[in-house]
């Protein structure tokens, strides 16, 4: 993607892996178009966001597993009022909270691609779209979503 194809203007805070290494597998995974989330090796519970131990069984042997990059809209919002200089004059944008039913119903936040004024339905099926910011000083990838065809 070129800069002009990013969903939101550049200049918002860029994501960086946690200095303590907690979520390194996730940020590396998305750069390779893979959605990798935590899954406890001991009890198989999916967990998101990342933590150092499993909330279910307290095992510290928490593994990472690639999951299919799709989900459903659990909730959404359409932001109109710009609260950051980078968003001035940008217009509305859509944020979706996406549930992954095939991964223990964990949820993640992303933007919904397409018309920012589109009608949005909770429960709609989505596919992930990896938005690579390769030209950034510290390259990173955002995970957006598009309504499944």
């Amino acid at each position, binding site marked *: 993607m070129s800069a002009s194809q990013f969903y*939101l203007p550049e200049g*918002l*805070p*860029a*994501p*960086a*892996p*946690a*200095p303590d290494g907690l*979520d390194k597998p996730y940020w590396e995974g998305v750069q390779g178009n893979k959605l990798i989330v935590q899954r406890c090796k001991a009890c198989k519970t999916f967990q*998101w*966001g*990342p*933590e150092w131990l499993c*909330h279910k069984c307290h095992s510290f042997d928490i593994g990472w597993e690639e999951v299919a990059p799709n989900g459903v809209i*659990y*909730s*959404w*919002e*359409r*932001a*109109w*009022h710009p*609260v*950051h*200089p980078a*968003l001035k004059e940008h217009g*509305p*944008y859509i*944020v979706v*909270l996406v549930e992954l039913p095939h991964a223990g119903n*964990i*949820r*993640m*936040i*992303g*933007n919904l691609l397409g018309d920012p004024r589109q009608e949005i339905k*909770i429960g709609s099926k989505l596919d992930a779209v990896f938005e690579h910011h390769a030209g950034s000083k*510290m390259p*990173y990838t*955002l995970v957006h979503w598009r309504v499944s065809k």
Partner: protein
Amino acid sequence: MTNRTLRGKTAVVGVGETTYYKRSGSPDSEFVLAVKAILAACQDAGIDARDVDGFASYSNDRNDPSRIAAALGIRELKFSNMQWGGGGGHGSGAVASAAAAVATGVADCVVVFRALAQGQFGRFGQGPKMAAISGDAAYSLPYGVLSAAQMFAMRCTRHLHETGVSRDTYKAVSLAAYHHAQNNPRAVMYGRPLTSEAYDDARWIVEPYQLYDCCMENDGAAALIIVSAERAKDMKNKPAYVLGAVAGSEYRNGAPCHNAPLYATSSFTGIAPRLYEMAGVKPKDVDALQSYENFTGGVVMSIIEHGFCSHEEANSFLTYDNLIAQGGKLPLNTSGGNLAECYMHGLELITEAVRQIRGDSSNQVKNAKVSMITSGPMVTPASSAIFGSLETL
């Protein structure tokens, strides 16, 4: 262990606040605002400020009790308490801490206060401006989830979806607050009424919140004073007895990246039953309710979770007529609250709850005996409190 309760052991005997300003409107620094509010509360109570021996606050209030104690010449500081997390959700929790300290002899005269100069220290309604972010925020800020409104909107959207509650209830909450502010000379929106048309025509901030669903950004400070029930009897004001004050959050409410299992709640499903049990009252006993409004949708959820109506009843119960002090079934935010009095991070809701018991609210509910506050919907931890008059003990 039946005496393990706060019920009736302490009382609020003084309240005070500074002038409430629009953000950047304060001629005083935040520290000066804090001290002025504390002195005002002491004067209201008829207490020498040097005899205060404890402080409780929340949300990382920047005004360190040791500095305040030195500035005021407090004789001995015995209690200096800050609650973790929850933003404005810990106002009632600070009351719980102060009351617990007094009830157990840890301190004798504790001030609960909050000071905020958003002009001096930055606006709550603006997003952070750092170049890079890690941790939980790395999963939201880059997607444009930057402000409090944007952080909480999806909880409300999900709540509306799951329950069938209408956004008309949001409007009722907003109009009632502005109505009350018109009778309250302290209110920033005093003299600036809100019409139904102006509410409807206001721009979206973030769906499902329009402009008048959102709290203001202000400068100011407020404080209240808690002493033992015994001592309160002999003081100049009618005491507002602490019947109950509890804080907390549900199972994994703080799970990162919006993974709280009970997402479509305002975080009170555990607090409400504990509060009523401690206070020994039921929702129908509550004469006036001050419910923290970061956003109107959170108020609607708070009211339902505290049992004032069910989800099914909400659309018919949460109307303007029912929410105003003049004849409403559930007088709500009778000072104007965070929407129209002042965003004093909810402490102004607590001083208003005290005023309802004392009988000196600008929107007084006749013979109010039980007065309740809910602090901080959708955050973790949240908190709630109930005050009662002498007859309720």
